[in-house]
């Protein structure tokens, strides 16, 4: 077998960019998992900046603590916090699926793994929300 040249790659393929990710029509469950991971990942990055913004409020001095704590107990903020948990669960469990499938483990069951990741995330999310709002 002859050695392979790494220059054998052409670049004629037209670039569709991130628009190609969001093709929904005709796509299957694997694409839903692919898109879910990207969207939740971007939302988690967005939340990181929100989190840093809130923490910066604390630099205004000891008096700002009351303000920040009141914000943390606000129902809207708690709602956002619960969504953060949901994104972490979905992103984390789907990431675990990708890590396993990506190294050749359980590749044939990738659809079932994604479905399981979504159901487990949903179940844990319900428990977290109930705990956050003091129901349980």
């Amino acid at each position, binding site marked *: 077998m002859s050695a392979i040249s790494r220059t054998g*790659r052409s670049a004629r393929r037209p670039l569709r960019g991130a628009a190609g990710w969001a093709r929904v029509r005709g796509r299957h469950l694997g694409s839903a998992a692919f898109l879910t991971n990207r969207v939740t990942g971007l939302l988690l990055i967005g939340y990181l900046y929100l989190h840093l913004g809130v923490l910066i409020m604390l630099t205004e001095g000891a008096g700002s603590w009351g303000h920040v704590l009141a914000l943390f107990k606000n129902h809207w903020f708690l709602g956002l916090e619960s969504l953060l948990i949901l994104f972490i669960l979905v992103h984390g469990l789907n990431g675990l699926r990708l890590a396993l*499938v990506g190294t050749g483990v359980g590749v044939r069951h990738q659809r079932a793994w994604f479905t399981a990741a979504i159901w487990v995330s949903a179940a844990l999310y319900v428990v977290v929300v109930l705990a956050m709002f003091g129901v349980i």
Partner: protein
Amino acid sequence: MTETEIPRGAGQVRRFRISRQGHGAARPRVEEFEVAVGPDASLLEALREIRSHQDRSLTLRYSCCHGSCGTCGMRVNGHEVLACVTPLASLGAGPVVVGPLANARVEHDLVVDMRDLYDHLEPAQRPLVRQDERLAGQEGNPPGPAFARYEDCIECGLCVSACPIAGSDPLYLGPAALAAAWRTVQEPRGADPSSVLAWVDDEQGCWRCHASFECTEVCPSGVDPAGATMALRRELTRRKLGQITRRGRHRP
């Protein structure tokens, strides 16, 4: 079958919205056609009917008409299909939206430039035809009649069209090439598959795949390019772990 043999006017009238794009044109335009089709008509038969009797300039590519040659790949209602084996009855009752494969330069109308796919298959050693029906180490004639056994990939390019990464990274090798590479690694026929593994062990090789599995979903031949890509990763991981373990053992 010649074009005059296509059954006409036997059943319902179907509407087609076809993407038209001249060579070098920046944007496609959509043209509508109506065709009377029989109950068992395929998409390719309808397109040939349009070309034969309504617009001779409609450009499409086809050859075998039974799903073996892989030349009539296109996108229909958002799905990558081979037109010759797609019954119109399976496409719902509404207008049939037809366009060229994605992630490839459009040559004309429904014909795309396949050179990118073919170029990437070459370094994968193009494992298309088995050199020998005998398994490695087996002696004597294999049972049954001798015949050339072809690999499953028909080089239709549906997998590349469906891949979200092939559209966002023009240097990505793509699912067809990776599937071919795995085929070579799986059955090297006495050769050393290391060069193929070194080729795919790259940022734009098997590690670039983001596991959307669309390639496997749309493959009309059951090649499972996504499974092949994951198998390449497993093999590379196994070899690298083996190297680390051996290095550790030899350390004084």
